[in-house]
């Protein structure tokens, strides 16, 4: 189809893009469409919409999501950083707009209407923040006197303020985790790492004390008997290993947001534990493959940026699945690529596009890094150290 010597944009892309990651994303999109077909009609009937409502829209959203993913993945790291910076500024503007003039859905103002579609700008803030923050941190590590971590922390503080105002605790958690992970990779002193791990439960406790719905969810988790979780557990029991068959599930009729926050439970009932393990396996594969590709890249920026994007997908998937199997308190979190929702799908496409772009095989990329790394430098390093020791 494409010749190896094809030097066109598409040709270069095809031969350098990581096809395993690409395949993973495409499979997830297809599975997502199948699952929304199963869960959608029940939810639609519940809230009095035409039964095909969610299915048709999901199929409609897949197209732009796919387009965003492919387009973004063709970009080179340099323009990606520039575009992310501009994009993040725009998204932050939209998020402020959402708070000021947004529509309130289920008690939160995180949505704005754009061209007749409800958009959740914070979904896009996640990957863009990852790129910009990684850039700032890399500059700190590789630049002479650039306090990148201060800028990154300030940016985080701004975003968190906006997100807490909405309020969107789930998104806040993901963004704080992204930042923490990047700081960790960028060589934050171990003392701080240990401190942060110690402080995390404290932060959760503060949220537990001060936010009513967090109190409620966590209490429910420890007391048991939460309605949604009981239904979710029931769907696993009903589904067994092979599921009751597509469309034959009954638990979804009793689950609110079966098409988004509890789509994993629908998968469990209708397609069985085997299908759930396949889904879990695909996410696990994407995470491992993504980390491996990030490791093999030579530049520090690509390593930090790519792995934090991978982490975002992994954390979101893990929280969604762990909520469904009652391992952690319920947290409304969409399953990337699978759950219903235009913003979620588009953002997943953007995240994956960025990840694909940053993990492309490139020969010239090392020159992008101001400092060459590799065995040569390392050996020099070690000899210096040896000398130091001898001295």
């Amino acid at each position, binding site marked *: 189809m494409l010749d190896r010597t094809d030097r066109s944009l598409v040709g270069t892309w095809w031969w350098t893009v990581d096809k395993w990651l690409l395949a993973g994303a495409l499979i997830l999109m297809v599975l997502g469409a199948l699952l929304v077909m199963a869960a959608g009609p029940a939810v639609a009937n519940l809230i009095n919409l035409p039964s095909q409502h969610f299915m048709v829209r999901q199929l409609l959203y897949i197209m732009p999501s796919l387009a965003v993913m492919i387009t973004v993945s063709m970009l080179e790291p340099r323009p990606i950083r520039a575009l992310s910076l501009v994009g993040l500024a725009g998204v932050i503007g939209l998020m402020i707009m959402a708070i000021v003039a947004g529509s309130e859905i289920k008690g939160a103002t995180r949505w704005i209407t754009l061209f007749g579609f409800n958009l959740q700008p914070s979904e896009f803030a996640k990957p863009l923040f990852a790129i910009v923050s990684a850039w700032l941190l890399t500059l700190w590590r590789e630049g002479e006197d650039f306090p990148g971590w201060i800028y990154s922390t300030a940016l985080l503080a701004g975003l968190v303020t906006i997100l807490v105002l909405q309020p969107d605790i789930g998104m806040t958690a993901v963004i704080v985790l992204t930042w923490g992970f990047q700081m960790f990779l960028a*060589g934050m002193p171990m003392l701080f790492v240990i401190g942060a791990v110690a402080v995390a439960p404290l932060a959760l406790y503060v949220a537990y004390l001060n936010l009513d719905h967090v109190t409620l969810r966590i209490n429910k988790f420890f007391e048991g008997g939460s309605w949604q979780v*009981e239904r979710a557990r029931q769907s696993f029991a009903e589904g067994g290993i092979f599921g009751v068959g597509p469309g034959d599930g009954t638990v979804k009729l009793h689950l609110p947001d079966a098409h988004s926050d509890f789509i994993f439970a629908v998968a469990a009932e209708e397609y069985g534990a085997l299908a759930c393990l396949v889904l*879990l396996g695909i996410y696990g594969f994407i*995470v491992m493959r993504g980390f491996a590709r990030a490791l093999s890249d030579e530049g520090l920026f690509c390593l930090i940026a790519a792995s934090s994007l991978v982490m975002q997908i992994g954390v979101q998937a893990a929280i969604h699945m762990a909520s469904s199997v009652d391992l952690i308190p319920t947290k409304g979190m969409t399953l990337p690529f699978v759950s219903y929702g235009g913003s979620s799908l588009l953002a997943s496409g953007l995240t994956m596009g960025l990840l694909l772009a940053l993990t492309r095989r490139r020969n010239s990329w090392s020159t992008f890094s101001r400092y060459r790394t590799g065995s040569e430098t390392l050996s020099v*390093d070690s000899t210096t150290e040896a000398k130091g020791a001898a001295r």
Partner: protein
Amino acid sequence: MTKTEITQNRMKQSLLAARSLVFPDRPDPAKSRRIAEGRLVASCFIALAVFITIGVRIVTLATATEAASVSPVPLAGTTERGQILDRRGRLMATNLPMTVLHADPSEIMDVTEAALQLAPLIAHHDEASLTRLLQKDARYVELDRKLTPERHAAILGLGIPGINFRDGMLRAYPRGNAAAHILGQVDTQNHGIAGVEKSMEAQLLAGNDVTLSIDIGMQAILAKEISSQINDFEAIGGAGVLLDIRSGEILAMVSLPDFNPNHLGKISADARFNRATKGLYEMGSTFKVLNTAIALETGAVRMGQTYDVAKPLRVARFTINDFHVYKRPLNISEILVYSSNIGSAKMAEAIGPQTQRLFMEKLGLLDHLPLELPEIGRPLTPRQWKRIETMTVSYGHGISISPVHLASAVGAASGDGLWVTPTLLKRQTGDNPIKTRVFSAETTRNVRSMMRLVVSHPDGTGNFAEAPGYMVGGKTGTAEKILGNGYDKKANLATFVATFPVHDPRYVLAVMVDEPKGQKKSYGYATGGWVAAPAVKRIVEQAAPLLGILPVDEESPEIRQKLRVDLQIGEEKKTLATF
């Protein structure tokens, strides 16, 4: 360098060291890279651990089938409510698939038109009530719970938007009124609200069938005969219990008036009331059976001992009278056969309050029975149990119990001396009923023989209960009911408690008729002997063959061997053997 300088220097160095611990010097890029790589690899392992944990959890949940039963809210329609069967496996309560007709008023475009079209097809609604329902500000209104297939088709044909159908289950009781009080009822959501439907809710909800100890055939016989007596004597109600005293199984239990459990609502509180288990009554002279048994068992009284019953017994401000006055002393058999209150009271005095109370407790008469029904009554017992209470209890006053209590207590006194916990569930092979010994075999043999004489002796009060060949023994009871502040002479409770066949005791039958009125054919009497005894005779005649009891010749040596034939009744030495 002075000492102070050295100290200052050292302090500076240690401060710097501390600072570098918190704000380390920026490592060179290559080292940054190595740190990042190392930490990313560590993250890989953490991620792998998280995903494996979730995977293990998925498999655990999916393979744990009992997780479904953990759910506190059973999903409607997932399991069908269990059926209720009689002891021979005949259906008493089952489920019928039905179509439920409901509407979403927000989707109805023309309410008037819809009501007009639907009205002739819906059983319990007319145009006006339908219009009201369809205008409700709700998303769900139920129009008909029992839609027939024909009407279902007709309404489908109308094609009114917003009118929907749903598969429903209708709880049906194919035997109608039979055993209504035992079965109870379910509400519109198919949850038990009375009877076994309520007490066995958990088992039925889980889809398990319940097999009762009840025999539908026996049930029908009791209902027919007792209700015929209620009609003949213009009574307000009645009850009957047929108990297998060996297993404690209740074979039949009726309370009249009854109701049809298939029709929810429109049932009077009186019909709903279970006289057999929840109704508490002073049982009157039937208690003399227990009194005689206790007196013999404790040794307070010997067989053949006599009591002077010529004069009314005055105790404090009460006077105890007899129906007939007997100038001569009566032996204890005669006291039972003639039903002498004075004699019974004197026997009770010999027993003593503590002992009597202890036996009443052993016979289950002081507490509610552990029956499988929500509707069970706790006996009303004397607050203080002194001499006077002991005397009144001996002839069945001052203590109120349910007919089932009476049957199980008499079962112990006239059977093999064991009190068996009564049950409404069929005993399965292997489960042993709880039995407590109250009386010796010798005591019950004496009591049985006396009970036989109540029926067979010409002077006995229970002659009308004689069912030839089936060896019925028993005791009549006629108690004045307490209405308002005192006893009402006109409001009687006519009872008869029978044990049969007396030579091989197996069944106890208690029949009670509530407030019978004296009739011309009964010479104005409304006593246990006139009202309840004939029902017992007819019930035994029909039930005994079904229970596998063969008629016997009372004069045959084998039968006589099993009974005491030397009991003396009357001045001429009439004994059991003389007729």
